[in-house]
């Protein structure tokens, strides 16, 4: 059975993190620290969520003076709705394949 879109553990973790502060703009490195996701996992998720219209992304002035702008992210209304829905749904645990008992002898 195909898995529902955006239901992976990593996507849920990212959505939950962004949903915790829905109005705040978050940066990539900070998200890897707070979610525990590696950059190699985080960016494909961010790109996909952005492509699906669930995430806003824009260049924002860095908080540290003299630093160039950074790409920042926050959930769109649709993204926030999805995050809220996923938060209320339990994580689906894949069912193990049934085992067969074989009688010997």
């Amino acid at each position, binding site marked *: 059975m195909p898995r529902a879109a955006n239901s992976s553990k990593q996507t849920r973790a990212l959505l939950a993190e962004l949903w915790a502060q829905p109005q705040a703009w978050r*940066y*990539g*490195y*900070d998200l*890897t620290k707070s979610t525990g996701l*590696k*950059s*190699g*996992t*985080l*960016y*494909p998720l*961010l*790109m996909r969520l952005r492509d699906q219209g669930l995430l806003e*992304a824009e260049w924002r002035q*860095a908080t540290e003076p003299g*630093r*160039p*702008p*950074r*790409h920042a992210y926050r959930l769109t209304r649709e993204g926030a709705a999805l995050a809220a829905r996923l938060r209320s749904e339990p994580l689906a645990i894949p069912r193990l394949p049934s085992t067969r008992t074989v009688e010997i002898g």
Partner: protein
Amino acid sequence: MQKLFAAATRRIRAALPTLAPPHRRNWSEAMQREIDAAPDAAAALRYALGCLWVVAREGAVRLGSPAFAVQASLTAFTSGLSMVAVFTCGRMLLVGIHDDHRALLAAGSAVGALGLLYGLAAERLIRRRPRGLMVLAGAVILLAAGAALTVNPTNDRFLHALSLETLGTWAFVVTGALGSQLLTRHPSQDV
């Protein structure tokens, strides 16, 4: 070690926009800024490696094409040859110096020069400079052809064999690069 990490990170950081497909270039620049935000060299390198993986995969998915496959294979081929040649050159020079063996020193230098040329070819492939690659390949092929014609195969069997081998490998590189260019010009052929 910190310096090594920082140097590797700088290389990867600089390569990200080049490797990223056009529709993801903005993201590769975003990754660059975040690499700068890492608190230390090791964390920056870990982050950069993850970004490199994403960009390379995005490139592969985007192009997903014979052109990309050819380009990537050629890059791997020339990089591999460069590393093998530089390693072999080092060994030959060490033994040559130790034994005061002039022929071995000459052969080692030739292999080392070839290693550098393969490295240059890989760099041009990564930076997508087909014209630069063709100029380089043309010069190497001319030199190798000249060497193959002038070096006496009985007296200097190694250099003769090396020049023939060089002709073969660079002809392969040129064919691959031309093929890749043709495929890029006909995106409809991309799968």
